[in-house]
């Protein structure tokens, strides 16, 4: 069992599946919570604003690895008998929500004040102002940064290996330990990451260029 064959490839693809799944789950979960965080961050109540700011600071100011450990072992200490899967999804969702929340807060605040004033003058309520006026513009502007974060997130899921979650990078490590060809295996793992992340990066960059042209 020292050659790189079909079983090894399948094992890596199995890892890839978890990488993609973890990315998607934490991106969606992080997106939903991040939206709430962004809205809280620009809320008119200064208490809510500060809570959201603290949440963002907490997750941006500590290493992802610490967050993983704390949530993984913390849940266990609290007698939640959860498997790695749930703990890891939890940690990455929290992580993503803080970063996405901060990205979107920035673009919401970058919109001209006149947009809010015109909405108010038309007596649009809060929900309509956000849903129809502010968020469509803010989210569109934030798309390049959001895609950029999705790329970071995809690569960042490799850290989940540390608590025993077998995603792509960890799968690579296992295979390489079995067949003693680390360069070959990690080369292949790297190529798989690249094939996923590179198109997203290009997409983000293109979008950014197109937007700056529209604004010129």
């Amino acid at each position: 069992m020292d050659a790189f064959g079909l079983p090894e490839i399948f094992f890596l693809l199995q890892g890839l599946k978890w990488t993609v799944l973890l990315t998607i789950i934490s991106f969606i979960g992080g997106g939903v919570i991040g939206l709430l965080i962004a809205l809280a961050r620009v809320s008119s109540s200064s208490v809510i604003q500060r809570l959201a700011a603290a949440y963002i600071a907490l997750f941006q100011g500590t290493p992802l690895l610490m967050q993983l450990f704390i949530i993984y072992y913390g849940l266990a200490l609290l007698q939640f008998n959860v498997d790695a899967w749930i703990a890891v999804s939890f940690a990455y969702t929290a992580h993503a929500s803080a970063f996405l929340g901060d990205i979107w807060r920035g673009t919401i605040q970058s919109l001209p004040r006149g947009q809010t004033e015109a909405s108010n003058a038309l007596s649009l309520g809060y929900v309509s102002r956000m849903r129809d006026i502010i968020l469509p513009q803010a989210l569109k502007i934030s798309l390049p940064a959001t895609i950029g974060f999705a790329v970071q997130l995809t690569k960042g899921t490799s850290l989940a290996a540390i608590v025993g979650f077998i995603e792509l990078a960890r799968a690579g490590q296992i295979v390489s330990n079995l067949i003693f060809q680390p360069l070959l295996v990690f080369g292949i793992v790297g190529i798989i990451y690249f094939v996923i992340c590179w198109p997203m990066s290009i997409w983000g960059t293109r979008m950014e260029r197109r937007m700056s042209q529209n604004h010129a």
Partner: protein
Amino acid sequence: MQKTTSANTASMSVSENETLIELKNINKWFGGFHALKDVSLKVSKGERIVLCGPSGSGKSTLIRCINHLEAIKDGTITVAGKEMKHDAKSIDSVRREVGMVFQSFNLFPHLKIIDNCSLALRRVKRLQREEAEVIARRYLDRVHILEQADKYPAQLSGGQQQRVAIARALCMEPKVMLFDEPTSALDPEMVKEVLDTMIGLAEDGMTMICVTHEMGFARKVANRVLFMADGQILEESAPDEFFSNPKHERTKAFLGEILAHN
């Protein structure tokens, strides 16, 4: 409908007794800066008020207080019989009576012209899309821009955008329209189309408060001109009187400057 006796449209009906807007001793502070000092103002239905004065005198602040884009510290604001307090409900009820046009148009850039105009009808008045669009088209037609309904704001000239902004406000059928220097961001050749639209509104009996330095417009349309300086209304009179016989030194100096530039 040419009137031979008067160049001014002041002969248009103003019901003297029906007060639409009443500001009583309002004070506005920006931090330690006293922006409006005990300002009082009564506007009757159908009146056309022009508000002028030097930069920083508080003109924008004054009209922005009327629909609570700025919150006052004390005093009372009553619009169409409704007193505005600081609660969302009374603010909303006043805003529904008041349309506003901004210097920088503030159209929604991601929405088509028709949607700019129909959105509030759907969200605030809860009309169906079709009904809302019928109304929106009516007002777009009124400002002579119906053919642009399916374009986006950025595809229109400044003058066209400002006319859309006027139509957007009119769609909500406000009792009063506030204008904050509606023509000062426009290229000179587009000023007239916007002023003509506003004149048309005045002729239809709309109650208006306009911050503008377009003195030709003031002469033609206003029945009162107010002059503000340092957060106070220093002088107010009918346009003829205001331009030919200003009383206050500050008014004279201001008019001297404005007329020199026009």
